[in-house]
């Protein structure tokens, strides 16, 4: 399936900026609006746009099915693991104060880790749902 050349060139041009915006929303979540959930959906949206314009085979060469399927549980494990780490160091579950010497840095690090878990699961799940729908139609 070949779509219009303008559509393909424009998509190629904006794809990196969509991913950059997703990363901005993720890492800037401490200071501005957004966070792991929104960033994960935007990153998945980039993969879906690529798959719509260039075909699912092309998208799965870049983001293979096994990677997407693995991302779904890995994010939950990262989130839960952050809680277990603070557990091991003697604090309550998901208490980030213990993660660094300065409690404030600990909170920063904890939020970053937890959001990394969220973006992994959300991006993986959204892409996995899209792949599941598309593969069903073949």
């Amino acid at each position, binding site marked *: 399936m070949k779509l219009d050349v303008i559509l393909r060139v424009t998509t190629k041009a904006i794809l990196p900026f969509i991913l950059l915006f997703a990363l901005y*929303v993720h890492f800037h*979540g*401490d*200071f*501005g*609006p*957004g*966070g*792991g*959930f*929104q960033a994960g*959906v*935007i990153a*998945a*949206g980039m993969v*879906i746009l690529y798959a*719509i314009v260039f075909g699912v085979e092309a998208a799965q060469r870049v983001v293979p*099915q096994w990677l997407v*399927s693995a991302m*779904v*549980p890995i*994010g*939950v494990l990262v*989130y*839960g693991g952050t*809680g277990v780490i603070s557990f091991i160091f003697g604090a309550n*579950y*998901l208490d*980030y104060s213990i993660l660094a010497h300065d*409690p*404030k*840095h600990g*909170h*920063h690090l*904890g*939020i970053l880790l*937890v*959001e990394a*878990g*969220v973006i992994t*699961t*959300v991006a*993986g*799940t*959204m892409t*996995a*749902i*899209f*792949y*599941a*729908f*598309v*593969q*069903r*139609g073949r």
Partner: protein
Amino acid sequence: MELYINMALLTLLAAITLAIITQRDLFSVVILASIYSFLIASVMIVLDAVDVAMTEASVGAGISTVVLIGTLYLTGQNTELRSHRAIFVPSFVALTTGGMLVWGSAGLPAFGVQDAPVHTHVAPTYLLESIPETGVPNVVTSVLADYRGFDTFGETTVIFTAGIGVMLLLGARRKRKRSGNVENQT
């Protein structure tokens, strides 16, 4: 200014809703629902809830539109069949629920009032102490990921469960693809 923007947005919302109700072509309904999501996202921006607006625009207008169009493509059903059953019970349920919601909204405190219960319970603590305690300037993030870390963990688990469920129902046909095709042909 904000009043006129709100009026324009809410008028458009009402128009889109009427269009969705009267429309029989399901593809048009999906596209109209996507426009509805974008309008709701704009309303959220006017209400200064940029996080919610972002989520609504990306999930409501983006991902769910793609998934719904995929569903239409898979089922091959593009027009809603005219139902000849009585519409009394569904419209009664809808009108009663809507009426009770409107009635209940009369008991809510006025919009944006400072001494409303939501603003006097835990919100002042979060607003005053989140920066000294966590050092994160965005209170939304510190509440979501820090104070309410357990809730967000639950939400992530919900997304995980949803993903696993869809993959089990729709995906995971890779290995049996050959035999599945043969079965379909017979």
